[in-house]
Each structure stands twice: as structure tokens, then as C-alpha cells.
């Protein structure tokens, strides 16, 4: 019997760097998958355009009529909503992927690999989000041009890009929390709906949280939902470096906290699966 023994060809370098490399590869897979499904991407851009038509019509009407006793509109809210919808529509359904794989017993093949599943799933989802951000971003700029609205200054566009990217990360981590509940709940839809509705309300999807009454405004600004949407949107109506720094600080803090929360849920869920052989 001939025998050329197989050896482990891997060089075990610092494992963190190796994990990052694998996440990079997963991110590229996400980019490839999303770009390949371009008709779906096109449909999403069309949806973005339509919702912007409706919401601009709404905010333009509000700005045009000055009803006695109404609060003042702080700038062009159509552009604000353009930014928050840009982020919202870029988020991939990470919670559904998690639910499918956890509930469908599809985790095992992933657990048999030497890299953390959650990190790879997140990276793959973020790759998908990047493609959508790009496609919807271009759509948004075209809409801005066609509608003849005043575009935010270039510096603000830079701020929006940075806050938008981190906002997507916040949103994905929030949805991941809902998806990870699949270790304990048969359907994660209720968790997802609660998080989504809080995004609408406290995140300021349709109007900036600065319009809210005092206590709700403060609670919203400190919430992860504002980190997801509001801070990026705020740059569209009142661009300022100070606001940018404040938003960035909140986003970084929430990304760290939410990541820790996701990892804690993942560990607890994984321990359950390893012990019981399923959920």
C-alpha cells in the first residue's frame, strides 16, 4: 500500500488575522452573490425610487403649506429620508438566514469548520450590503439630480458615507440579535418586528428624531436605532463635523455593545446545540 501522508498544510499564524482573512473571503462571496442576482437588485432600486417619490411628495406638501400652529420643517426632509431609506433598504435579511440555518439543522457543516460561523455569516451579509449601498447610492444621486433638489455639500456626502456604512453594521447586528433568538424560539418574526418598528420610531426612519418631544428625542438619540439611521440622515439636513463626531461615537459604542451581545447569544445557543444535538 503506497502512502503519502497528508499533512495539515495550514500555517497557524495569529488566528485573529486568519479569521479576518476568512471574513474577507466571505465578504467577497456576499458581494458576488448579490451582484449576480442583479434583477433583484434592480427591483430594490425601483422600490427605492418609488418610495422616494411618495415620501418627497409628502414632505414637499408639508413644507409648502404653513399650517397655523405647526412645527417648522428643519430643511429638506426628502433628502433626509433619502438617506435613511438608503440604509434601510441596504440591509440584507441576516435574521432570516440565521433562523433558516439554526432551525433547519444546517449549522453542523459550519461547525465542522475551523472558523467562527457567526463572523463569516456577518461578513457575507455585509458584502451583500455593500453592493446594495452602492447600487441604491447611485439611484439616490440620480433621483437627487432629476428632482433638482439642492444636494448636500461634498463634505456632508463623505460624512453620510461613513455614518451610512457603520449604520448598516448597527442595523445588521440588531437583526442578528433577532435571528439568534432562533436557538430558543421557533419563529423569530416577533423579535424582528419589534426591532424593525423601533428602527422606524426611535431610529427616525421617516422624520428626524430632533422633531420628537424632549424625552423621546433624548431616548432615541442614545438608542442603537438612532445609530442605525438617524445620525447619517441628520448630515443630510444640517451637516456639521460636531454632529458627525457625536454620531460616530454613538455608532462605535453601539457596534461594540451589540457585537458583544450577539457573541453572548451565539455562545449560549451553540452550547445548547452541542449539548442537545439540535435546537
Amino acid at each position, binding site marked *: 500500500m503506497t502512502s503519502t501522508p497528508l499533512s495539515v498544510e495550514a500555517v497557524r499564524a495569529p488566528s485573529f488575522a486568519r479569521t479576518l482573512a476568512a471574513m474577507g473571503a466571505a465578504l467577497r462571496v456576499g458581494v458576488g452573490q448579490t451582484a449576480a442576482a442583479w434583477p433583484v437588485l434592480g427591483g430594490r432600486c425601483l422600490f427605492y425610487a418609488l418610495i422616494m417619490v411618495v415620501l418627497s*411628495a409628502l414632505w414637499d406638501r408639508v413644507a409648502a403649506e404653513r399650517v397655523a400652529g405647526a412645527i417648522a420643517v428643519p430643511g429638506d426632509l426628502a433628502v433626509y429620508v433619502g438617506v435613511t431609506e438608503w440604509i434601510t433598504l441596504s440591509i440584507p435579511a441576516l435574521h432570516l438566514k440565521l433562523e433558516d440555518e439554526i432551525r433547519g439543522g444546517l449549522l453542523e457543516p459550519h461547525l465542522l469548520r475551523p472558523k467562527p460561523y457567526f463572523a463569516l455569516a456577518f461578513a457575507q451579509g455585509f458584502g451583500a450590503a455593500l453592493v446594495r449601498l452602492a447600487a441604491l447610492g447611485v439611484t439616490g444621486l440620480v433621483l437627487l439630480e432629476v428632482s433638482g433638489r439642492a444636494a448636500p455639500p461634498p463634505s456632508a456626502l463623505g460624512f453620510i458615507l461613513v455614518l451610512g456604512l457603520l449604520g448598516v453594521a448597527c442595523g445588521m447586528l440588531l437583526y442578528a440579535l433577532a435571528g439568534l433568538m432562533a436557538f430558543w424560539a421557533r419563529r423569530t418574526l*416577533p423579535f424582528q418586528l*419589534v426591532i424593525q418598528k423601533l428602527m422606524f420610531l426611535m431610529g427616525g426612519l*421617516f422624520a428626524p428624531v430632533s422633531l420628537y418631544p424632549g424625552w423621546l428625542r433624548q431616548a432615541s438619540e442614545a438608542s442603537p436605532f438612532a445609530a442605525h439611521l438617524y445620525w447619517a440622515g441628520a448630515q443630510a439636513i444640517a451637516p456639521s463635523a460636531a454632529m458627525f463626531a457625536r454620531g460616530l461615537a454613538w455608532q462605535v459604542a453601539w457596534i461594540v455593545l451589540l457585537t458583544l451581545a450577539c457573541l453572548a447569544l451565539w455562545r449560549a445557543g451553540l452550547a445548547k446545540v452541542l449539548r442537545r444535538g439540535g435546537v
Partner: protein
Amino acid sequence: MRLVRLYFEEVAAAIRCAFADRANFAIQVGGMLLNNGVFLALWWMFFAGFRSVGGWGLADMALMLGLMMTLFGLCGVLLGGYRDLAATILRGEIDAILTQPTGVLPRLLARESSATAWGDIVGGLVVLTLFAHLGWRDLPAVALALVCGMAVFASAGIAFASLAFWAAGARSFARDLTDFTLLFSSYPGSIYRGAVKVVAFTVLPAGFVVMLPVKLVRAPGWESAGLVVLGAALYMALACGLFDLGLRRYRRGASSAG
């Protein structure tokens, strides 16, 4: 008459299926109520701040949302099959029904009944009674508005889904068009102008689903009632015609489906 009985028996069976998993049913209905509640809260805050938009106040918006939720819910419960009709056509599931002696379209519509739709019905009725400033005298107008709005919304869904007889890619397209109609129907009718208004009264018929019905309830009259009924009749005829044309194509074997 026999057909009507068969239809309701099928719907009853579909509703029993939706009720079968009670925990799941409760979660779905609860989730939908929460969903609708937050949506209403957002509009409440909007009108608290801005008072009115294009002459519409919170009561008008509540009337519109209430009508939309209720008729969307009724469609989901009674005509649930409309939601994934395109997929049903594309999977060739029509064949089994074609071999049976009864009407094809009613059978397809009665096949499914959505659980979440009950949440919409309950939510819609609550919104209509509590926030829309309605009295007993408005009841006939509201009923007419609901029936006609339902007919237009379901007809639009059937027409979009019938495209599947011609193009295989129609499934997600049909769903998108239905979602767009829903989107147009969820904002104050008074904000649309020009080309957008034309779209709302043609391709994505939000105008006939809720906007005209709201007018009918607020200012009842023979003219507005006639318009609402005429719109519903037109869209129903269009949907049936398109479906029938597609079905004939399908039977000839020229369709992309099957």
C-alpha cells in the same frame, strides 16, 4: 349558488389551516397588530407636529389607514390565494384545478387564507372606530368603500399575477407591483400631484383602492358612489379578462408556465 357554497367551504378549510398552529397564529396576529400600531403612532406624531397635509388631518389619515388595513386583511382571509398566484401559475399547479368542473379563478383565490390578515382586520376595525370620527350614518358608505376597495386591490393583484402566463420572471415583479400599490395606498391621498397621481389612478390603483373611497365616506353622494363602483367594476373586468386570456394561452401550451 353551488359555486358560492363551494367557495365558502374552501375558504373555511383554508382558515382552519391558518388556525391549526395556534401559537404561531397568535404570534403572527400579534406581530401584525404591533406593526399597524406603530404605523398609526408614527402618523399620530406626524399630525401632532404638522397639523394637516393637503387638507387631510389625523381623522382622514386614520380613515384611510383603517380602510386599507381592513380591506387588505379581508383580501388575505377571503381571497388569500391572490398573494402568490403568480407562483401557483408558474409551478403548474393550475393543472389539477383545470381537470375539475368548477371555475378556476375562485378556486385559486380560495386555496389559502393568511393568518396575519386577522391582525390587519382587527387593527383596521379598531382604527376605524376609534380614530376616524365615524358615526352610524357612515356605515353604508364604509361598507361600500370596503367592498369596492377590496375588489380593486384583489383585481390588481390578479392582473399582475396573470403576467406569469406570459413571462416566467413575473413572480417577483407581480409581488413588487402589489407592494407598490400598498405603498401608494398608505400615504395621504392629498400629497400626489401630476404624473404620480396618474400612476395612482392607473397602474398602481391606490386611487381606486382608498383615495376615492375616503372621499365617498367623507362626502357621500351619487357621483362619488358611482365612481367608486365603476372603478371596481372596471378593474374586476380587466383582471378577469387578463386572467382568461392568459389561461387560454396556457391551455394552448404557449405559456411559459407549467
